[in-house]
């Protein structure tokens, strides 16, 4: 029982990162109707960014978020202008196909780049406070992971404010709902696409930083994170950022529970089972509209 609850606590905390990863992917998919399968690689890059800042300059990983997130935003702007901006000119069906091709290509390129720059070894950021643990009853809660969960939640809340209060944030949501109607109200839809893509990439960078501090990174984690994010997006449905975040927490808990009950090797299966169950029972996702 203690083992199970301990597992669930850890699952909850990694679930926050699943949620953060998925929100970025969901934002890009919901607005541009483009599936960026290199999202996990962007998370990986964010992780290495924080790793470099820590190893070379001695930056605290949480403080380096202030640098990694803006850099990721810029990377997103660049990637949109160089690659994905051409995809959105076509109709929606072609968009998906073309974005898959571009995404897989980008994923391979970024993976190769990461191996070249940082070798294929696993890395992680070990801070002076890395081992600190909060003891609650029989449960041990790693402080770094708890802080990561809190940061992830704060970022989702900030995104929510941005999308509801900021003029262009509302324009982004309007474009996601109906891009032609958005055009009619005078919204430059291309710019809304650009901003949404940059924001999604910025969130990926933040997620990567949090992964590198509480967990570990290697050039090959990209696909795994893309998959987790995809599972959460299918599970939660499009349209609600908080819903997506909750979907991430749910996946984390479900994985932890199955690992505790059936054993570690089955941890990865549970996500696929969830996708299957959701698609059968509620194809629009738990929090999706329609």
């Amino acid at each position, binding site marked *: 029982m203690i083992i199970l609850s301990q597992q669930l606590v850890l699952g909850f905390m990694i679930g926050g990162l699943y949620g953060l990863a998925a929100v970025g992917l969901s934002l890009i998919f919901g607005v541009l109707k483009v599936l960026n399968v290199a999202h996990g690689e962007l998370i990986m890059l964010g992780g290495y960014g924080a790793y470099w800042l820590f190893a070379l300059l001695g930056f605290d990983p949480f403080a380096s978020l202030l640098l990694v997130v803006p850099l990721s935003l810029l990377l997103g702007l660049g990637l949109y202008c160089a690659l994905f901006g051409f995809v959105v000119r076509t109709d929606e069906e072609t968009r998906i196909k073309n974005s898959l091709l571009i995404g897989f290509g980008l994923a391979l390129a970024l993976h190769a780049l990461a191996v070249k720059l940082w070798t294929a070894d696993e890395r992680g950021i070990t801070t002076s406070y890395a081992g600190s643990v909060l003891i609650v009853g029989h449960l041990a809660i790693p402080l770094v992971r708890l802080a990561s969960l809190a940061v992830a939640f704060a970022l989702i809340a900030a995104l929510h404010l941005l999308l509801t209060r900021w*003029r262009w944030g509302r324009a982004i949501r*309007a474009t996601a709902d*109906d891009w*032609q*109607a958005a055009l009619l*109200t*005078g*919204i430059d839809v291309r710019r809304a696409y650009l901003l949404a893509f940059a924001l999604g990439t910025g969130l990926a960078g933040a997620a990567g930083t949090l992964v590198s501090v509480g967990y570990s990174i290697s050039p090959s984690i990209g696909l795994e994170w893309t998959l987790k994010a995809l599972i959460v997006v299918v599970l939660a449905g499009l*349209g609600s950022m908080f819903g997506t975040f909750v979907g991430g927490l749910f996946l984390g808990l479900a994985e932890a529970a199955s690992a505790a009950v059936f054993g570690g090797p089955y941890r990865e299966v549970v996500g696929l089972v969830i996708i299957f169950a959701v698609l059968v029972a509620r194809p629009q996702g738990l929090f999706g509209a329609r």
Partner: protein
Amino acid sequence: MLLEILGLDAAYGDVPALSGVALSVEPGEIVALLGPNGAGKTTLLKAIAGLLRPRAGTVLWEGEDLGRVPSHLIVERGLALVPEGRRLFGSMTVEENLTLGAFAPRARNAQGANLERVYALFPILRERRRQIVRLLSGGQQQMVSVGRALMSSPRLLMLDEPSLGLAPLMVQAILDVLVEINRGGVAVFLVEQNVRAALTLAHRAYILETGRIVGEGGGAELLQDPHVRRAYLGPLAAPEYFVL
């Protein structure tokens, strides 16, 4: 001349939708565009609003060729479209939909005054302003769609079948509001299935059949026109769900 269209051709792939369409709208006018389903009425409105680029011909707005203007800047010129099927931002509230209508720079400065004007025209929207538009009735959604277009301070309001699928009372309410908007100096270009109602309130009307303008005239004049009566108003015409 507010809007002038010259020799407009449009096509979907190889299928022609409009050929050689020419028409004009003067400031302060109500002009109706009539025609059967598939005649190209929606295509024409989309081409004017910049959602669709024509094959040939020009759309002149106060003498300026709109063919060179990016789509999202057209509304800033004072030309707003209430699209077919309302096309609201379904996940957002009434007020968010309305304020997005004032996104363009010129309209943003007048946002407060325009919002008051829209609420004065449609008081029910003020009560419902915090509701998600997807949950409103069809008529209320149409009000939001008209209101959103008005938020851009248009000088020409184009409407594509605003009465489609609405209850008769609601149809009358929407058409009454159009007359009121027009009294405020806004020109109206109206596509409407409800031919009798449209001709009654329009100063002039054009008839579009299979992509060509086949007739034009004053509203009252066309009501008496034998072709119009036979094709759109006679006993064999599509049943009308209300009579003025």
